[in-house]
């Protein structure tokens, strides 16, 4: 039987579906009957979701032409080395 402390310790693995099926079911059962855990899980899910694909606060300026040409030369040289 899982209590709040057990659930709290394994929430990320639970949300990432990295736990064995039986453990997952036990956690689900606990959460379904525990209002504080529901609230907590919802806030954690939202926080994780907001982190996905986080973009810079100040956008990156367009790539300077000189840098782009340098990268392109490295790319083309590599392709030539590989016989492409």
């Amino acid at each position, binding site marked *: 039987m899982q209590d*709040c402390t057990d659930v*709290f*310790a*394994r*929430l*990320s*693995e639970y949300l*990432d579906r*990295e736990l064995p099926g039986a453990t997952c079911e036990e956690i689900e059962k606990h959460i379904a009957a525990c*209002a*504080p855990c529901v*609230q*907590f899980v*919802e*806030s*954690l899910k*939202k*926080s*994780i*979701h*907001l*982190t*996905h*694909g*986080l*973009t*810079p*606060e*100040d956008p*990156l300026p367009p*790539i300077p032409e000189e*840098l*782009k040409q*340098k*990268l*392109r030369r*490295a*790319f*083309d*040289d*590599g*392709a030539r*080395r*590989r016989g*492409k």
Partner: protein
Amino acid sequence: MPEGDLNIAERLLSGDPAAFEEFVESYRRKLFQYSFLMCGLREDAEEVAQDTLLKVFSSLEQLREPQNLKAWVFRIARNECLMKRRKSVFAPEHELSLDELRPQATGEGDARAIEIADWSGLPDDAAERSEIRRIIGQGIKELPDTYRAVILLRDVEELTTEEAASVLDVSTDVVKTRLHRARLALRQKLDQSLRSAALGIA
């Protein structure tokens, strides 16, 4: 691993100029974001992003498994960051304990509740709100190094547990443990911001 990564890796290996454009466009921003949150200084981050791209293009033949493109690129970026890193830019290294990250509970039985902000006003997408991006970015920066490294790879860049473990040279169990604590710390930070109405959502 998304199919797009395998596809772009194979096209890069075959020397396709359109793949070069796509890769630079998408990875320059990712690498800048990762390095900025890892190293802390904008100028260092721009340099890490460009040095990583240069290393990627000059050593593409070392990418043995094209499906591992993203992890391979971030491994290079991580090494570039380690070389740049100046000490004490961010929070000192310390362990995050689960106890500190648990919300306070009040009441007994059916009346049991936790102290938590109202999260319902937050949008689903951080891109909609620059102050949310700022708070999350700041929250990530305040994490100790080892936790920050994991959350950036797993949640910001969405690498798998195995990929993050290979980038960081640690076991998958270590990735899982650190990720959970990093997420809890970030959640706590957002919760505190919501409560202090720093997000302007009353």
